[in-house]
């Protein structure tokens, strides 16, 4: 009976601990200089160092979408410009934020959880607390701030590179010219779309960094625990990205 109750209440317990952790991280930021330096360092690690893998994933996403749209839609009834009309909004609305999110859930989420998890099991977090520092604001706030600042930037880069990849393949494969691609993209462009994509990137940035910080911060059980936290951080970030993707689409579109 007690076990069943504990099992039933577990999601609420986790949600409560997660909320308190994030709240605690931001309520007592007392030395702004320290946090500014840490945030800048995290922006480099989370954002700048992720550019190559995000660029690669985005370029291939745009290229493959271009080939598939050409295969599925272009016919005697639809002009080739439809490729631009589909690829550009797909990158802006869905592929840009979600592909970037998945890539970073693995790269950034796992890294954050491994770093904080190792700090936890080697008592480095206890050492920070014992010195009189708020370890959550010192470790977690800069990572979340870096995430919500850099993810939208990476999203913009991913969209540009993805659309660029689509245009490159369209030209190389002889599907359509750059002018036709751009014309197609402009025909169905809605000014709201980039804002929607940016909103997603912002939310995904928060999800990945905060979930991974939670997993890492509460790591227990030595090296095995660090491995478990790292895996859970990547998996749970992806799960929450999918859920948030649907919720945002339903509420904002």
């Amino acid at each position: 009976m007690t076990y069943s109750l504990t099992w039933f209440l577990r999601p609420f317990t986790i949600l409560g601990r997660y909320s308190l952790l994030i709240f605690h991280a931001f309520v007592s930021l007392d030395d702004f200089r320290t946090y500014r330096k840490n945030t800048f360092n995290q922006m480099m690690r989370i954002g700048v160092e992720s550019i190559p893998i995000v660029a690669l994933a985005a370029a291939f996403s745009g290229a493959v979408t271009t080939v598939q749209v050409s295969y599925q839609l272009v016919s005697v009834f639809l002009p080739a410009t439809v490729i631009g009309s589909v690829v550009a909004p797909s990158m802006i609305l869905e592929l840009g934020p979600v592909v970037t999110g998945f890539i970073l859930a693995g790269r950034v989420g796992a890294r954050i959880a491994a770093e904080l998890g190792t700090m936890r099991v080697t008592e480095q977090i206890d050492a920070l607390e014992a010195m009189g520092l708020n370890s959550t604001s010192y470790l977690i706030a800069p990572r979340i701030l870096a995430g919500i600042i850099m993810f939208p930037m990476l999203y913009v880069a991913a969209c540009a590179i993805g659309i660029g990849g689509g245009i490159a393949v369209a030209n190389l494969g002889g599907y359509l010219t750059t002018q036709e691609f751009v014309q197609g993209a402009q025909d169905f462009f809605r000014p709201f779309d980039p804002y929607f994509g940016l909103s997603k990137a912002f939310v995904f940035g928060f999800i990945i960094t905060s979930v991974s910080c939670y997993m890492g911060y509460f790591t227990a059980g030595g090296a095995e625990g660090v491995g478990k936290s790292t895996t859970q951080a990547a998996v749970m970030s992806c799960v929450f990205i999918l859920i948030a993707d649907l919720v945002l689409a339903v509420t904002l579109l």
Partner: protein
Amino acid sequence: MILLEHITKQFNNTIVLRDVSLDIPEGETLAVIGRSGSGKSVLIKHAVGLLTPDEGRVLVDGANIHEVSYKELRRIRRKFGVLFQGGALFDSMSAFENVAFPLRTFTGKSDEAIRSRVETCLDMVQLPDIGKKMPSELSGGMQKRVALARAIALEPKYIIYDEPTSGLDPATSNHIDELILSLNEKLRVTSIVITHDMHSVLAIADRVAFIHEARIAWTGTVDDIHRTDHESLLDFVRANEYVIGEQTSASEVSLHP
């Protein structure tokens, strides 16, 4: 003064501490001894508020550290220097940066003053030339000594040592013991030392607390150990093969002169 009153703590239905009370007056060095897993580290984590007791309270200079605000708790924690069992050095920072970290964070000292203080602290632990090395480049014993340098950097009022001499060679262990004694004598630092090393206990402790079966089973001065008839403590002490008077090994030791 640090006062632990009726501390009870359990993890996953296992009681680690049961109604434990201890007082550590200012200027005293208390050694907490006991077998592995007896709850010694758990006990000292309560002293700095890293763990919250299920029952009981901890008073530091009269303030109940589990009732004060988090901001006040952090202010109280700055009175402490803690040497963790594994050193707990920040592995993204060099040895120098580790020792400088509390100085940079909590003092408005100039870079030159911080450098001078860090060098003094590293000299005290006999590691004057390793400032640029990363923790991963240092041996376990050296990491522990750098961690000790970091713990004393802010000249704390209270120092907690969790196994300060474990993993160190006998000469370095003796030096750490001397350092603890000297801090206690010169700065009137109040210390809690968790250790298995009876040689250290005899060298540095004013008073000894023996934890057994989740309780403080025995307390007394170092001299009292020689006269005790507490069976569990005697077993623990004999297993340490320490030296008393003219005798040289546990097998030869009679604790009832």
